[in-house]
Structure formats: C-alpha cells, structure tokens
C-alpha cells in the first residue's frame, strides 16, 4: 500500500472534481477537506458554500466538527441565512455539490431517509438535510460513499436525493437539469455513461480490482472502455492535504 490512506485518496479524487473558479456546495467531513485541497492546488479561485448560511473562500483555520462551528464563522466571506445561500442552488449558480448517502442506485439516486421504504422501514435514517436540494439543483452532483453491496443497490427504497431517477430522460422530465457526475467510493470511481445515464465503473483505486468492485455492487456494473487505475495523490496534493489535516485525522 502506498503512503496514503484510502480516505486521503478519496479526498484527493474529490478535490480533482472541483474546477478553478467554481462555486461548490461543501458538505462536512471529506468534502470540506477536498475543497481545501482543491483551493490549495489547482482551484485557488473556488468558492465554498455551507447551508447553515456561510460562504468562504479559504478553508477555516481550526478543527470543524460541524459547518457552523466558530472557526468557520471567523473570516468568512458571508455570514447569512440558509435560504439566502441555498437559493443560489435554485438560482442555478452552484457548479458542484457534494453529498454522502446510505444507499445509492445505478442511476445515482440516493436514500438517506427510509431503508426498506416509507411504510414500515427497517431503519429510519436522519433524512435529507440539504441533500435533496443539492442533488436537484447543482450543475454536477458528486457523491461520496462506502462501497458495499448493500449500499450500491439496483434501486433505492426511497429517493431522498434525485440522481437520474429511472434513467434516460426521466430526470429532465421531472423538471431537473444537472445530475450526478461522479460517485467516489473507497474502492473506485463511478460515472454515468450512455443515454441511460447508468453509473459505470470509471476507475479502480490502487489495491482493488474490477471483479472485487463488481462483486461489491448491487447491480450488473458495466465497465467503461477507458477504465484505468485512479491516479494516486501527487506529492503536491498530499502536501496540501497535510497542511489542512494537521492532526492526520484522515491518515488513520
């Protein structure tokens, strides 16, 4: 194994999805670190939005347990309300949004509400938070998940956050543009492909292989012709990551 953790690889892969100058709806944990890495490397003009009502340019100086913690308030570019920041999504002014999820299906629909469906769920999850809005309204949705067969399923029991719905034109018919651009897991990166917009295997992380990834996926995962290994973090990317993650939280 190389000199980085799987979480560090996921963070770097997520950072690469952010382009310079883009406006990014940033979630907590991995995405906020990914945003910081992007700013310190290839995207020095990116802007980060937080649904509690914060806009930042540079990452916060200090440990954040939640996005509303004092270090995220100090030196922010804007401290306002949820409606004011989240309306930028509905206004079409957010390039990329990050969300996580408990369950995702082959069209990128995500469930964070009811495992087992509405009627009599086996697990009641916390719910959408801002995820449904971010998934519906970001120009590109980026999902971050653990890669297990019970999580990557044929069809989610409940669509909290819409991906391509039933595939093809169904998302457009529901009145939505955008859609999932990448699903970054701890084993691989999946991307939509073809007129169906079904998620395909785009790259496999070092130490993992196609058969294993397909075996851990709940649908018949197709492989993109130009499949490659996920490029490992560069020295520059790791340096940026370690500058943000001073305590090595993601190295464990």
């Amino acid at each position, binding site marked *: 194994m190389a000199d980085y953790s799987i979480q560090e690889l996921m963070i770097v892969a997520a950072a690469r999805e952010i382009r310079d100058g883009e406006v990014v709806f940033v979630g907590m944990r991995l995405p906020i670190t990914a945003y910081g890495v992007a700013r310190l490397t290839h995207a020095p003009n990116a802007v980060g939005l937080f649904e509690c009502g914060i806009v930042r340019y540079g990452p916060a100086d200090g440990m954040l347990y*939640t996005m509303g913690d004092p270090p995220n308030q100090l030196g922010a570019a804007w401290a306002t309300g*949820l409606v004011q920041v989240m309306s930028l999504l509905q206004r079409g002014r957010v390039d990329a949004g990050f969300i996580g999820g408990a369950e995702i299906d082959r069209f990128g629909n995500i469930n964070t*509400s009811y495992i087992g469906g509405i009627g009599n769920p086996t697990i009641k999850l916390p719910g959408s938070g801002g995820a449904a809005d971010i998934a519906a309204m970001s120009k590109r949705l980026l999902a971050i998940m653990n890669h297990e067969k019970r999580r990557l399923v044929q069809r989610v029991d409940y669509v909290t956050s819409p991906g391509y719905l039933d595939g093809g034109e169904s998302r457009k018919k529901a009145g939505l543009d955008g859609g999932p651009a990448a699903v970054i897991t701890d084993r691989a990166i999946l991307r939509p492909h073809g007129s169906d917009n079904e998620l395909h295997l785009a790259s496999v992380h070092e130490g993992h292989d196609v058969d294993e990834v397909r075996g851990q996926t709940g649908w018949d995962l197709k492989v993109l012709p130009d499949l490659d290994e996920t490029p490992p973090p560069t020295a520059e990317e790791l340096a940026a990551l370690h500058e943000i993650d001073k305590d090595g939280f993601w190295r464990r």
Partner: protein
Amino acid sequence: MIEKLVDLRDAIAEHLRAGDKAVLGACLEPDVPFAATHEIIRQDLRDLNVIAPISDASTDMLIGAGCCTEVTGAWVGNVSGGLGHNYRRAYETAEPHKLTVHDHSNFSIGMALMAGAYGMPYAPMRSILGSDILRSNPEFRLAENPFSEAAEPVVLVPPLKPNVAILPVQRADRFGNHHHWGSRGLVFEAAMAAEKVILLADEIVEPEVITSDPSRVLIPGYLVSAVCHVPAGMHPSPMTGRWQRDNEFFNEYHRQSRSRQGFLEWLDEWVLSLPDHAAYREKLGARLERLRIVGAAPAAETNFAAA
C-alpha cells in the same frame, strides 16, 4: 416598553402548551436552545410538533423523554454521532411512543417558514422535484408554472406558522431587543413566522447597546414574548463569538442513548435530577469554562451617526 425578562421556567410554563408547534433552534448546528429542551422535559410538556431544519440532539432528547410526537423537519439525528437513537426507536418500534414525521428538505422547510414569516399563501419552489419527499409528505402540491410556456413542474409549499420559536441570541435587553451575529440558518424566518418568540440571551445588556446597531437586530423586541438570561443556554452546541462546540458531549450522549436504559440514565443525570440550567452549568464546571471563547476578533467599527 414592556419588561419581558423572566425566568426560563416561567417563560416555558406561560408560553408553551401541550400540542404546540415549536421551533427549538433553527440555526442548524449552532444555537440549539438545549436549556429550553431540558426545561420542557422537566415540565413534561406533551405532544409537541417540533419544527427544525436540523435539530441536532435536541429533538432526539424530546422524543426519548416523551414530549415530542411529531417532527416537521429535514434531518433528525445527532450531528456528531450520526443517527438519533430515540428517533429511530420511536419511529421503528414506537418506543416510548409513535412518531409522525413530516418530511422536508432544508430548503423546503426554509420556504415554508419564509412563507409563514411573510404572510405568503404558499411558496413555489423547484429543489425537491424528483425527490420522494413529495410522496412521503402529502402536504406539498405539484403544479405547473403558469408563467412558463413549456411544461415546467413546480412544488407548492404551504406556510409553516409555529406557535412558539425558542432562539438563543448573544445579547438582549430586558425589553426583548437583541443582537444576533454569525450564520443565521432559519432563525430569522422562524422568529418572524412564529406567534410567540422566547429568547435565551447569553448576556443581558442595556438598551443602548442594542440601539447602537439596528442592523444586527434579528427582529425588534416588540415581537418578542419573553427574554430569559441563560448563559451558555445552547451548550453543547456553539454560539458565534461566545462558546465553542462541546463535541464530546454529543458523542457521549450518542453512546449513552444507544439503549433506552442508557438514555433514561443520561436524562436523569443531565436533566431530571437538576433543578435548572444554573445547576447544569455548575455540574459542567471547568468543562464549560474551557469552551468559553476568550479571544478577540472584533468586527470593524461601524458608524451610525446622523450628522
């Protein structure tokens, strides 16, 4: 002006009723009025419909204590710990009681409170299109945009008007005028939408402090029903410029509330066995003092002089 400074116990007893729709914090992770959560549990108020975009552990506590039988919100759990165990138990196994959930996204509950705040008959929006929130919460309506020539679906969100909103603020005067700074989540919309507003003020100041900066006022004091002086009334959540987050407290609650028995023990230790928030602060002792923000990062000077 009317004096509104009262004890938290009296404020809850006077203004909150069983069955009320209540906002307990709407700032997302900061400024959750846990002091009020605890007082509601001590007074054993029942059948609350708790409204919040993200409630953090406050709603989980109210559910476990038997006070909350309905939730109108986008997310219920424990931000540090993930799942809310009382929430799961109530929803999945009706322990200690059945729970009704009115599903929202953060933006849809924002639109609902905004419509309530501004007296709008409803709010049309788009960002829960495609989501099953439209199926599990039948209060929304799907319609066509009458201004669009091509077919364009929109979601109509009915207004939310809470009976009471309980909100922490950094400082207030005894007439209910106050300042709030840092990110606001849905605090403003909740305060304007609610019939009654109860403030937990970290500090009570002279009226001149508040009128020195009318741009930092959330809503004017005449719209406030009661002000309670409760320092760190939002512990363990943070308050901008005043208190850091006690993250480990959330984790401890998460671990202890994993079992019903563990939750009841936690509740006894931190709520039921304590008479009020002063006793809670005393019990926290040095732990609370370590969270106090003592540094200085002052806002740039701003002049309101008229001549």
